[in-house]
């Protein structure tokens, strides 16, 4: 069984976002493997360790910088990597088309990915890949059992959990609570360099979304401080909410 994991190189979650010339600037930003995808990589490696998967292939679309994310996954224990070279301005549609093209050629049994990326948070690419390939898709999974050509996935649902059974091949995207990603071992890091990584150019697909402008959220305004007896504070706060903030009461 072959497992393919999609990974994205994203900004460090602690990075300070700044705009330059109307675009998000990556100057001086530390790039990391998307933490949600890291969980998917760990999930794939665990399937291999359990003897379910024979090979774990990691795929990333983006600039040469995405190679770091691939190397990290290889150091954790993935077997080989594919870098799909694509303009970083590609939208979710173009990104999914490029990845789907490569996935079709690899014909994996399971496609894993994080359910969302820590940078743009669009949460679209795995679903789009499944749609393009005609694979079933299970989202935000926290556990998976593979047996008899089927995947039984536990995922989060409103107020509880949902168990979904799908036939393979399928796209399965992970919630962070699925597992605790391992640190790459020292031997893993030394071995990563020797593992094969191929580079392909992304299929030429035009974006469907045109970005008109990018803006940072307005900076937080100073709050108000009400100091008085508790009962008076309550009344003043209610007055402020009704008349200054103008909260609608239904």
């Amino acid at each position, binding site marked *: 069984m072959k497992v393919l994991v999609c990974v994205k190189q994203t900004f460090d979650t602690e990075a300070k976002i700044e705009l330059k010339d109307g675009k998000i600037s990556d100057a001086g930003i530390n790039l990391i493997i998307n933490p949600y995808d890291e969980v998917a990589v760990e999930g794939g490696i665990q399937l291999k360790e359990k003897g379910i998967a024979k090979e774990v292939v990691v795929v990333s679309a983006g600039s040469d910088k995405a190679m770091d994310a691939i190397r990290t996954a290889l150091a954790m224990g993935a077997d080989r990597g594919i870098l799909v070279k694509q303009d970083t301005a590609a939208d979710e549609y173009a990104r999914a088309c490029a990845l789907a093209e490569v996935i079709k050629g690899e014909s994996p049994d399971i496609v894993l990915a994080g359910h969302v990326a820590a940078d743009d948070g669009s949460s679209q690419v795995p679903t789009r890949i499944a749609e393009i390939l005609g694979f079933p898709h299970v989202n935000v999974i926290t556990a998976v059992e593979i047996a008899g050509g089927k995947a039984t996935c536990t995922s989060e649902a409103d107020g509880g959990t949902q168990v979904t059974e799908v036939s393979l091949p399928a796209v399965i995207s992970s919630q962070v609570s699925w597992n605790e990603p391992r640190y790459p071992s020292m031997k893993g*890091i*030394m071995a990563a360099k020797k593992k094969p990584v191929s580079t392909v150019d992304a299929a030429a697909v035009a974006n469907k979304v045109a970005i008109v402008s990018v803006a940072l959220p307005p900076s937080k305004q100073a709050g108000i401080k009400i100091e008085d007896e508790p009962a008076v504070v309550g009344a003043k706060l209610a007055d402020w909410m009704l008349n200054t903030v103008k909260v609608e009461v239904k």
Partner: protein
Amino acid sequence: MDFRLTEEQEMMKRMAHDFSANEIAPFASEWDHNHIYPQDCLDKMQELGFMAIGVPAEYGGPGLDHVTQNIVAEEICWGDAGVGTIMVASSLLATDPIHVAANEEQKKEWFGRIVDGELGAFCLTEPGAGSDAAGISTRCTKVGDEYILNGSKQFISNGGTAGMYTVLATLDKKMGTKGMCCFMVDRNTPGITVGKVEDKLGIRTSNTTEVIFEDVKVPAKNLIGKEGQGFYIIMKTLDISRASIAAMATGVAQRCLDESLAYSKLRTQFGKPISSFQAIQFKLADMAMRVQASRLLYYEASSLQDMDVPRFSKAASLAKAFAGDAAMLNAIEAVQVFGGYGYTREYPVEKLMRDAKIFQIYEGTGEVQRLVIAGDLLRG
């Protein structure tokens, strides 16, 4: 000249830093204050390869060059200098004599034991022989195909936790440096006792003890190199490990800067963060200079070792003396930046100040390093 790290060095640094920041730093205060030996943390480090950083790939280790080994040492000490001491004392200091002079069979056995998770301890210092390494009195006497060891060793890192000791002894004190021999000794050999456990100012997570040898029979095959080569082996080992100690000190110096920088942005006085005052800014800038200079000095010394340049002693001493002082100065300044809070145990910098002091003392004091440097200068 290219100051960039290789891809593996970058990855190793990142991984070691992540580990240190998540698995060591958040717990180090508790371990330090309550004198807890961090066994669980060491088990995780063993699994990831940290505890065998000095072992070449052909003997089952990760096979790192000296630069990378020391980058890892820096990052672990950023989290806790005591944990770093446990790791370096075992996988570098006690292991280096095996690199320097062991035969194939010895390499297989002793590197193998380190890889399997045993700790090593380097037994050189004695109650009467610290800076004067040639003044040791622990005797070794050959009887048949064994050597009998008698004597006691002082301030031994991992003394009570090691499974194997690298021991320096003399055939006859009158022979001076020519009588010295280096042995690998199994902890379970009859006649070995672990003495007093030191109650230290800093690096309190590490175990430092006296180790006493009374008629300890060591198989002759455990002699590293030849009889009389002990002094050469030890000097060479100390030359190699000096850069590692410099790296460890750099980790502490960096931590002092990181803590001070973060705190100075949060702490407000006179209505402004204290980082807006030049008095604080100059301290931060001085700390950053010392960190960077320490790091470049140890990178250079380690890189000379990797290039197999025969004389790297001076570079290693420059690095060790400078970085040891840098860690201490940065720690003092960090406490100053934190003010009254820095003087309490609630904040991390008082521990850094206690930990930093060791780097001016162990593995050749700052004064001994200066003698090495001056000696080299005067030889011309």
